[in-house]
């Protein structure tokens, strides 16, 4: 298993895609952090003020946005085996196909942790001096911020599982990537803005990630953090298990 994971990292680092998507996530994180701080205390903004622990947690949660592009990276990693027809060689080397998928799940969860740590560093580099300039002292070890940061790491890692699992289910690279982007960037943000649907939209993956990282948003309810974590983990495990089962059963032609 160790050799399989090492090989997956070789595959990942043989091209630069991981770096471009990491830069994308860094840019998104910087943008979200800046928006959260710049507009966090405008008078008509109903979110908690930046001086409050809730407001600070929301600022420090923005790194979880890296989950979307990480899921895309993971999906490309898996579907690429079929797109470039390397699946044959891969499964000839490791006929136990479940182990191959497991190695990819582990690899992209680890890469997710890496991306999350980088995005957290970016968040801190932007938020600490900026809030300081506003006269707000943020205790990184308090106000529930460590739990939020741990949530960011967990959420991004789980999005890696979601990407691998969905890729294994669909196999088709373009469909998987477009599906992920449209769902996470467009579809889910729209439906979660409909208050009438709140009772079930709280269980959607993006909302669950928000809950896990303790985002506070106007006009939107979230599950308690631990429940959000469980729901998100359930998506990851469900997709990973279904994708693995299907990969084991289907013919490689």
């Amino acid at each position: 298993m160790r050799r399989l994971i090492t090989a997956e990292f070789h595959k990942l680092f043989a091209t630069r895609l991981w770096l471009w998507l990491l830069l994308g996530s860094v840019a998104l994180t910087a943008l979200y952090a800046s928006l959260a701080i710049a507009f966090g205390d405008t008078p008509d903004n109903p979110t908690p003020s930046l001086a409050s622990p809730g407001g600070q947690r929301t600022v420090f949660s923005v790194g979880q946005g890296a989950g979307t592009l990480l899921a895309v990276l993971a999906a490309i990693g898996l579907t690429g085996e079929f797109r470039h027809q390397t699946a044959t060689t891969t499964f000839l080397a490791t006929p136990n196909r479940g182990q191959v998928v497991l190695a990819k799940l582990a690899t992209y969860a680890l890469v997710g942790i890496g991306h999350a740590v980088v995005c957290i560093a970016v968040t801190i580099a932007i938020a600490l001096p900026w809030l300081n300039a506003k006269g707000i002292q943020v205790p990184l070890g308090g106000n529930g911020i460590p739990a939020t940061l741990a949530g960011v790491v967990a959420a991004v890692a789980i999005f890696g599982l979601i990407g691998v699992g969905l890729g294994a289910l669909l196999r088709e690279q373009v469909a998987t990537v477009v599906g992920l982007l449209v769902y996470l960037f467009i579809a889910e943000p729209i439906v979660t803005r409909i208050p009438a649907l709140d009772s079930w939209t709280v269980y959607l993956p993006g909302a669950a990630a928000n809950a896990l990282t303790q985002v506070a948003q106007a006009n939107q309810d979230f599950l308690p953090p631990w429940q959000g974590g469980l729901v998100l983990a359930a998506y990851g495990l469900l997709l990973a298990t279904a994708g693995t089962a299907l990969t084991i059963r289907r013919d490689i032609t």
Partner: protein
Amino acid sequence: MTNEEGRIVVAGLTKTYGTLRAVDGLSFTVEPGTITGFLGPNGAGKTTTLRMLLGLITPDAGTATISGHPYRALPAPNDQVGALLEASGFHPARSGRNHLRIYGTVNGYPPERADQVLELVGLAGAGRRPVRGYSLGMRQRLALATALLGDPRVLILDEPANGLDPEGIAWLRQLLRSLADQGRTVLVSSHVLSEVQQLVDHVVILHRGRLVRQGALGELADRQAWVSVRTPQADRLLATLARTGVEQARIQRTGPDQLRVIGLDAAEVGRLALAERVELHQLTTEHSGLEQTFFALTAKADQQPDSPLKEAS
């Protein structure tokens, strides 16, 4: 047979896609130390068979083993079996060397092994370039390098000559011959008989998913030999041959002064002609190209109307 090492055994292998029976109760064996040609027209089921043999496609019925085990039960398959399959590719942005090192890592081979096989297939100079810049022939060489990575004793190659120029094909022949001479098992598929004719010792001929013929190449060629005779007295020679007990059906008149005699050798025909004082202008033994035999065998299989399943054309 006690020594299973290196032997490929296919028994009753069957795979159906919808109404198409791609492989139909196929059985054959491949022995170590030989190069066996796995032949059949396109769509005969060669690739499906090889993919079943390699555990990539699950058969509906039957078994396929290598060294006595199904591929998926081999403990370290790449150490024992190297395969080159059609529709197996490379990530275009990876270099050939990286491709080999990735699969070397999976198998626990040292990184130098990648350079050794690159050298072996003549790609040492191109190893660090991304595969997207490779020609078809270079990709085929890289696929062969991947198959050779584990120094396997069994090689299964699906249309390995595809994309190679004549020089490359000659090189491939030499390489495979030296591998077989080392006692390895080499199974090579092709839909073009002439491509492998000078390479293989044995043939397994497949048509519409069924075994048409299995045997040594020599036997297959000898089946179709005849004596070609040119004489201005064709009628007399024909009458003579008929009188001396050669069935009429086995003498064909191929021209006004030309006969084809099947079942007698040139010396016998010459002796009979001399005895009858028939003037001969030409007396030669001819073999059908193996290609014709191949066509004849696969055409014969076509006429058997016993399969209820129709092949989509």
